[in-house]
């Protein structure tokens, strides 16, 4: 059964007033602020000539536990928070931030942000308009879902299971991390929005040694939910076994081939292809500036027929999901490519306004101390019709890649890479020997036009992605069905 991305969307309208009260009590009350006080805070950031200003309040609690050699060796706890104030005038942005959430800090940062941009048209005042949005995850503290003893027990389980899985396993490390984040956005266009964003992750990495060879395997996942769900879903066992399986496969790997050949990508995390080959190139800022290889191609064919790509912030509990983005725009399902034709960009308010488009809920920032930019959430290719087996059978000589380390793109030339960490040869329509990790390189528009078969087995990744742009990291998701690219360059050592 193929799952279309929209099948994951089980909307639950929660009472956002509860979130608002929580956010106010966590973010504003400790510094003696009230919601009403934000109007004057915003006033400092406005002044003549400012088109738009916003205040972004954030507080986060982050916890990390690391097991090595069968013991929890590291445990850390990090508290961060503050307010970022932004003032926009035309294409200009002034930005300042403070670790203090107080009236004085709002005045200082607001005046600073406004003082550094000077032109633009006069703003007309807007009434406060609380944003109504669906919730795509529960507004909870995910760290509280398990006791410290239970967290330690999960890590020890992973260690025990991985070591029992195969005698060649010599090292096991496991980590459990989570973030409880509360944000509140107040903008001069009337926006008042809050969001409570849980995020958790469990990871296992092993080293296996056999016949003098040493290899690593790793597996992990998570999403926007409580740590208790990681335990309930028994991820210790799942990821421990998966990490060992991958290490054992890599112990048998032969040198990868070098050159151009058909590449079959597995379902799920290999969707990193979409993130690099098309995703970044469809972010609003690059297209407004004309620096993307996709600039000016709206309505044109940019991929094979049958290729439909969406950015979907509304996937239930997804790692990249957002109930509201970091400008307070509700998270959305945005169609990027429909049946091969470019249909949409991902926008924040600044770039949407300058391009005469609507914001798409893709404004994201690493923290209050960073400026928002158009960013991906969960980027997904919808399912096609093909049997995954038939896709493999159609290849005479090529590569079947099922897991990847990471990728990168030059959005201007369109060149992108992604590095396989588990891959196999396909010989005469059959998956044969595992091959060593190799980087695949292509050109975004070319590669998408060479997608010739699309499986019906759409799957999301397990929740491990971090996207980097201009030095800011944000959690993202990807997903795709098994698919075949007729020709990509495979960077092995066997020429």
């Amino acid at each position: 059964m193929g799952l279309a991305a929209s099948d994951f969307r089980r909307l639950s309208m929660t009472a956002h007033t509860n979130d608002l009260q929580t956010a106010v009590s966590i973010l504003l009350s400790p510094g003696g602020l009230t919601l009403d006080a934000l109007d004057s805070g915003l006033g400092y950031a406005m002044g003549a000539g400012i088109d738009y200003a916003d205040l972004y309040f954030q507080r986060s609690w982050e916890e990390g536990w690391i097991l090595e050699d069968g013991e929890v060796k590291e445990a850390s706890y990090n508290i961060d928070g503050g307010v970022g104030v932004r003032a926009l005038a035309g294409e200009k942005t002034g930005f300042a931030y403070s670790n203090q959430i107080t009236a004085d800090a709002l005045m200082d940062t607001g005046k600073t942000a406004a003082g550094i941009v000077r032109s633009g048209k006069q703003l007309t005042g807007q009434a406060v308009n609380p944003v109504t949005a669906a919730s795509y995850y529960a507004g909870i503290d995910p760290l509280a879902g398990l006791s410290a003893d239970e967290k330690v027990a999960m890590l020890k389980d992973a260690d025990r299971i991985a070591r029992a899985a195969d005698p060649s396993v010599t090292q096991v490390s496991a980590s459990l991390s989570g973030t409880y984040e509360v944000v509140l956005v107040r903008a001069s266009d009337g926006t008042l929005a809050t969001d409570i964003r849980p995020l958790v992750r469990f990871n296992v990495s092993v080293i296996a040694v056999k016949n003098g060879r040493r290899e690593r395997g790793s597996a992990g996942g998570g999403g926007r939910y409580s740590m208790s769900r990681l335990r309930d879903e028994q991820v210790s066992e799942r990821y421990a076994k998966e990490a060992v399986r991958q290490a054992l496969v890599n112990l048998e790997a032969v040198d990868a081939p070098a050159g151009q050949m058909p590449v079959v990508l597995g379902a799920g995390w290999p969707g990193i292809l979409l993130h690099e080959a098309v995703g970044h190139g469809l972010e609003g800022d690059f297209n407004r500036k004309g620096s993307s290889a996709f600039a000016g191609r709206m309505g044109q064919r940019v991929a094979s027929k049958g290729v439909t790509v969406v950015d979907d912030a509304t996937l239930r509990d997804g790692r990249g999901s957002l109930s509201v983005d970091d400008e307070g725009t509700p998270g959305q399902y945005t169609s990027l490519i429909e049946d091969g034709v470019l249909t949409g960009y991902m926008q924040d308010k600044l770039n949407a306004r300058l391009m005469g488009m609507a914001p798409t809920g893709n404004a994201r920032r690493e923290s209050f101390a960073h400026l928002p930019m158009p960013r991906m959430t969960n980027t997904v290719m919808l399912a096609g019709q093909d049997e995954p087996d038939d896709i493999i059978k159609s290849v005479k000589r090529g590569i079947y890649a099922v897991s990847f380390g990471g990728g990168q793109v030059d959005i201007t030339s369109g060149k992108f890479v992604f590095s396989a960490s588990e891959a196999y040869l396909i010989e005469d329509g059959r998956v044969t020997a595992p091959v060593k990790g190799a980087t695949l390189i292509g050109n975004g528009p070319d590669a998408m036009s060479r997608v010739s078969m699309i499986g019906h087995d759409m799957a999301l990744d397990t929740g491990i992605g971090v996207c980097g742009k201009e030095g800011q990291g944000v959690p993202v998701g990807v997903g795709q069905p098994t698919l075949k690219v007729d020709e990509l360059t495979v960077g092995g050592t066997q020429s």
Partner: protein
Amino acid sequence: MAQAFDASAQQALLIQRAESALAMAKRMGADAAEVGASVDQGIGVSVRQGEVETVELSRDQGIAITVYVGQRKGSASSTDASEASLLATVEKALSIARYTGEDPSAGLADAALMATDIPDLKVHHPWALTTDRAIELALSCEQAGREVTGITQSDGASLSSGEGVRVYANSHGFVGTQKGSRHSLSCVLIAEDEQGMQRDMDYTSARNPDDLSDPAAVGREAARRTLRRLGARRPPTGTYPVLFDPSLASGLVGHLMGALAGGALYRQASFLCDRLNTPLFPDWFSLEERPMEIGATASSPFDGEGVQTRNNRFIENGQIASYMLSSYSARRLGMKTTGNAGGARNLRITAPLSNPAALFEQMGTGVWVTELMGQGINGVTGDYSRGAAGFWVENGVVQYPIEEFTIAGNLERMFGALVGVGDDIDRRGSIHSGSWLIDGMTIAGN
């Protein structure tokens, strides 16, 4: 600068806060504790197509506390400078330590190793830079690049300038502190032909603003690097020598240090496990660390746990002469710390240096790589496979730009196949290296 920053006052405040945190930890039951604290302030401006795009004022602070209860360890950090938050952070570190396991190797570095020689290494050069002046410099950089014939647009020029203070203190009574600054200017330009767009960039970065390159020179170099990429083709698939640009050669040194790092070694996650005192590079190649170099990028008299830094020689006459260790990783390996908690500081190569023309001649036919993409490095096996762009070279002469290809090999074999190091040394980062010529890598292209 729009915000005043009194580094000395901040330093006094941080020391006081660190000592207060240590006292709290002791009072609340920690057997030992260590604290890292920092404050950084800066300005960043970016311009694009002759207009100001962003002006950002930054001020970041943080304090991180690690406590030891017996052989158990807990850490906590916060960006909130209040006394109440400090207390909560110490409490959290202690409460979390109760759940970690006994680790015989855990603990502070030995008291006898704490740095006592703490000279001023001249790494703090604040820049009294107004926002207007910062914008002016970025604009002049971009304009010089845009004026070059063939440049069709700019992706912007950015200037950033910052200074900060850091303090490290521990319950041995050690308090180390250093003020530092960093200033940089970069420019990204775009050119277009019938084949499509290409971009490239240049930057200058220094601790002292007087050491920055001329903004116009940065803009023009960005233009030169962008224009030379137009008309790129794909190279043939095969085995060829590869010449790495200096900044990319520094990256190879970075991979080497990653494999020599104690953390990777005791986890068996390095391709250089059990290789001490064995050959890795040709015998004419040595690599050493100069942590006390005056005014250099990464200079510091003490490492991340207060240990006196020293001139380590990691590669001597081609052999691995030392690993890169902290106290913890050293204990795990049954060795002594090399004063490298937090990494290596200022790596310098000792080797006979060739001018780049001689390296091209030595290469004959092969690939000159000026950009690498992606993360295709396996630190466990040394397997290396990355996307690349650069130039095709025949008989020592550059023929045409190339792109959309990969270079692959294995780091251990690549280090052994190093045949020359250039005198075109890039001094912008903490690793200073010239170009590297490496024989026999696999190119995947057409």
